[in-house]
């Protein structure tokens, strides 16, 4: 994502990006197929609303993973951060406004819970970033470790049980439909997307992160504060995960340590599908957002086929991921042939 171009140049560049184009085509085909095969559900508003309620959960996590992958790392702890902060928020809400308490308690309870969850998410992300940048543990190990750690904290707080009985006002706000149509969850996702777009293309931070991911040594030698950049990136990922946790809290009206267990894979899949280079340095927000939508549409489409078990979903997700990886390899000239020449 370049610093220099004007809007029109940027649009052209976006259209030229093969991965974004490919995703747009895939999405269009999916939608056409959906419309043709499942017309009644395709034209129903509720189909789209339920999609918009669901995808922000993993979409927000994917945005965090995207940022960490752009700087050459990875964040496998997003789900754990979402659960841990969601549980923390639920506990705070219940302690300020326990079931049966005065409804006027709900507002301060919700405010405190939201504030807590965002701060906790930022701190959790900071911890990841500190271990990666300062202690120099490989990001895979750090975030695998903190995945256990944060989930562990969540388990300790909840004793492994779900927390429910939240003030109804919470879901009235966070699961509201704006104007009776647009789900609040979608609005939160959109807000985060706008924030990332702004950071990545309107501030110096974006340029710096791409450079850091391209060549960390050169970044150090160019005087970039690589430690601070890394910590801030993981912090953002933690905050987005906390927002995802708030969305999950609203969707399920409860919190538990092992919600969303398939989301780690899903988030990584989305980011790779969206064209982010797992070795860092490149990737577009537009690609990731498109990939989120593609997967959600695919998933909802599958739902309309009752014969296809829900358990097929990981098969399809994993299959899509591998297909994308293999296809990306083929696009490099000469590699197609090499893939099939055994031995060597």
């Amino acid at each position, binding site marked *: 994502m370049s610093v220099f171009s004007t809007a029109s140049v940027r649009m052209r560049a976006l259209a030229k990006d093969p991965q974004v184009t490919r995703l747009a085509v895939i999405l269009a085909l999916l939608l056409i197929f959906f419309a043709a095969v499942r017309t009644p559900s395709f034209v129903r508003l509720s189909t789209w609303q339920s999609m918009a309620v669901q995808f922000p959960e993993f979409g927000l996590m994917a945005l965090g993973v995207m940022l960490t992958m752009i700087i050459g790392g990875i964040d496998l702890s997003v789900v754990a951060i979402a659960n841990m902060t969601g549980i923390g928020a639920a506990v705070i809400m219940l302690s300020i406004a326990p079931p049966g308490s005065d409804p006027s308690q709900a507002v301060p309870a919700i405010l405190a819970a939201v504030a807590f969850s965002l701060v906790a998410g930022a701190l959790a992300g900071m911890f990841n970033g500190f271990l990666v940048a300062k202690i120099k543990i490989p990001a*895979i190990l750090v975030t695998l470790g903190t995945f256990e750690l944060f989930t562990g904290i969540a388990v300790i707080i909840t004793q492994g049980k779900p927390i429910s009985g939240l003030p109804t006002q919470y879901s009235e706000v966070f699961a509201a439909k704006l104007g009776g149509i647009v789900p609040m969850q979608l609005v939160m996702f959109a807000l985060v997307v706008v924030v990332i777009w702004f950071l990545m293309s309107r501030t110096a931070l974006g340029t710096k992160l791409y450079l850091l991911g391209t060549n960390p040594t050169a970044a150090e030698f160019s005087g970039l504060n690589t430690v601070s950049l890394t910590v801030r990136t993981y912090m953002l990922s933690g905050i987005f995960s906390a927002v995802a946790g708030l969305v999950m809290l609203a969707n399920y009206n409860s919190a538990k340590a092992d919600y969303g267990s398939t989301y780690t*894979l899903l988030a990584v899949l989305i980011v790779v599908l969206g064209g982010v280079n797992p070795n860092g340095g490149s990737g577009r927000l537009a690609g990731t957002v498109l990939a989120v939508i593609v997967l959600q549409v695919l998933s909802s489409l599958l739902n309309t086929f009752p014969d296809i078990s829900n358990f097929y979903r990981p098969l399809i997700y*994993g299959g899509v991921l591998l297909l994308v990886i293999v296809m990306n*390899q083929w696009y490099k000239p000469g590699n197609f042939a090499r893939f099939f020449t055994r031995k060597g």
Partner: protein
Amino acid sequence: MKAIVHKLTRSNEFYVFLVIVALSVVIQARSGQFFTANNLVDIANAMVVPGLFGIGAFMVLVSGGIDVSFPALSSLAVYATTRVLVDAGYEGALWLPFLLAILLGGILGAFNGLLTSRIAIPALIITLGTASVFSGIMQGALNSVQIPNIPTAMKEFGTGALFIATNPDSGLTSTMPVSFLLLVGVLAVVFFLMKFTTFGRAIYAIGGDESAAERAGFKVKRVKFWLYVLVGVIAAIAALVRTSMMGQMHPTNLLGIELLVIAAVVLGGTAITGGTGSLTGVVLGTLLIVIVQNSMILVGIPTFWQRFSLGVLIIVGTGISAIQLSRSRKRSIVTV
């Protein structure tokens, strides 16, 4: 003598060993139950499955890769095996379940091997993808459910005891499972493979410097391919052992164990960057994690703390080796 001491203090395994000793002493002091026959047998028992998985994870890490698909791979292989045998009403000997599981594990491993040896994408992402495909096939296509009655041969293998240890105070008994011999056997075979075959040395060479290995004439792609096949086979054996020991096939029981296994191997001194590590380290790392998990009850810590403690262990363990690494690197920059 001096050389041995020097070598010891330079090795990661030695420190893990010290930590294990210290931990055992602390637990013994707090509970008085650590050095009892049945507790030690319990620990050995609990080591079998993670130990077997650890051997596979170790080999992949040495080659410079990482595999997070082995729980899904082995669950699929063993679920299919058990399903087929149960549906056919198999009442025969143990060799057939093993043969089937090994065959399936090898085939699924080959799938991993084909992709990782040919695609220039971090192995983590590839195996995340294959893990998902494997568990999708198991849960979706095979419509997996719990199988309560596994073939008798497997059940007998799972409950078979080498000996039974009794705690004289509490009267509690613990069984030393036959499968412990399998762990020892696989350890021996892999030790031989890694130390005394060109294949094993090739794995180390690739993990040290892949392009130098290519230039030296190693068939890098072929080695990687067969490595993942082998790891698939070992994982399938591990899952078959687990299923036999549980006396039932629980398809999702193993999912998630990859974290614990990789943590154990890394704690044992295998570098995630490839090229170094030893089976001694794998055994010690696994032992350490098993002790921590098994002994929490002994010292009265609720089991809710298990995941938290595992997380702390991973971070502290990898953090120490990361700090050591960056120190030695700083020194080497200066002397170059």
